[in-house]
């Protein structure tokens, strides 16, 4: 091998198709989202927590879940962040993501926060403070996906 041989790099790409089975719990959640613009949590009969996103079993109590509970379309931010850097494969920055405790739920549901002025990141972050109230806002076209809605700051 010659000492000055150029390095060789072969490009590759994975483009692999999956069909992810939602199961009856997620399917019902997205159906209700799409058809009735409702967000449903699921209550654990043992610990009584209303879990969002809903799931087939409570990880703590390890019992199956079936008790659907509609939660409010308003809640408060538990934690938020703003994507500020260009990162390969992710949306163009800036964009805000918040984990929101919707009223009536005991866990937080993540989504984008829209309508935020990002011209000053620190000012935007201050508006997205923990405890800030947000409302669920639905997209005009619903597809039965988590991106059917986003959060908008209230007040």
């Amino acid at each position, binding site marked *: 091998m010659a000492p000055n041989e150029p*390095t060789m*790099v072969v490009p*590759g790409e*994975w483009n692999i198709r*999956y069909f*992810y089975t*939602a199961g009856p719990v*997620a399917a019902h959640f*997205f159906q209700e989202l799409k058809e009735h613009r409702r967000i449903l949590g699921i209550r654990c009969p043992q610990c009584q927590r209303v*879990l*969002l*996103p809903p*799931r087939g079993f409570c*990880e*703590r109590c390890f019992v199956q879940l079936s008790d659907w509970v509609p939660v409010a379309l308003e809640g408060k931010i*538990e*934690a*938020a*962040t*703003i*994507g*500020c*850097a260009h*990162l*390969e*494969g*992710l*949306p163009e920055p800036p*964009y805000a*993501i918040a*984990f929101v405790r919707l009223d009536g739920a005991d*866990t*937080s*549901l*993540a*989504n*984008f926060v829209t309508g935020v002025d990002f011209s000053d*990141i620190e000012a*935007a*972050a201050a508006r997205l*403070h*923990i405890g800030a109230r947000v409302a669920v806002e639905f997209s005009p076209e619903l597809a039965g*996906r*988590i*991106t059917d809605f986003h959060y908008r700051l209230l007040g």
Partner: protein
Amino acid sequence: MARGVDVTEPVAIVGIGLTSFESAKSGQAYGDMIQEATAKALADAHLQRDQVPSVVLAASDLIDGRGISSMVFASAAGAMLKDEIKVAEDSAAGLTIGYLRLTSELFDVSIVAGWSKSSESPLTLVQNLAYEPFYHRQLGMDDLAPAALQAARYCHITGCSPDAAAAVVVKNRRNGAENPRAHIRQAITAAEVRDSPPVWWPLRRAEVRTESDGACVLVLARGNRARELSDRPVWIKGLGWETDGYNLGERDLARFSALAGAARRAYAMAGINDPLHELDLAEVHDFTAYNELMAYEALGFCGPGEGARLAIDGVTDRQGTLPVNPSGGVLCTNPYASAGLLRIAEAALQLRGEAGGCQIPGARRALAHGMTGLGGQSHTVVILEGDKEKAR
């Protein structure tokens, strides 16, 4: 009071092999990088490949860009026609498997190998695929987004300010500058940390893990075999590991709950009651500066909400009560799946007195921490001790 566990045939680290750590090892094939670290670890343990019957691997298929990448690379870690097993998470978890294989007494020596060459992959896209596909994957998050949520939540709950995070960065970067094995070897000022661009608010570029190519391989041996192979065995005195639930919206984002559990188990096994004073150093997985502060609390170096104070007061500086990340940590060197094993290797080098410029004089007992998963879902804690008879 923790009394400790009596292991009649204890397990020691008897071989350490590291590659250099760089942004992109574009001049070296993936498998050659792994073989380099493995050959160094075997040489350090005065062993030939055919004398090691067990091989534990730790890697990420998506970073490696090969499905079941251990099929491609196991032989590079010396595993051809051997008993081999892989963990698809941080390599510190691989150490626990290696330990259990030796204490099972089915094996007396084992390789534990971790590697990542993340420069070959679209890393943020790879991290986005770690999100489940229904509720989270469409939200444009990578592995730093949950760490940003943790930072925001941690500051909200504890009153921690960016000054404490900057103190961690300044400390680790200063340490890394003294560590001949570190990837980033450049000190930084608090003002430079503050002026570095935001990545995921509130996290700034200087406050988050770097990205490094490299491999780390250890050789473990049990009992008298360890004493035969090394004149400076580093004994594994405590181990603990724990995994939290997946859903970030259900976790306490201001705390590493699973790390607290892992630490409790490791301390009980090693008989440690007061880690701040009983340990000589700690190598923790500082994925972000805030994560290091959270680790102080989960590891019991201080009470809840006191992590920032520890950093600002210099308690975890190299001259402090308990030096944390004298190597510079993950802020300086982050070969992803091998980052946890590198924490263990750096701690072991300290206990052998071979850490070089970042050596803590007279270090006898150390903690090493590895973590995996979004927002640090899984944690491993290892307590290491230098050899009593051979202490210098």
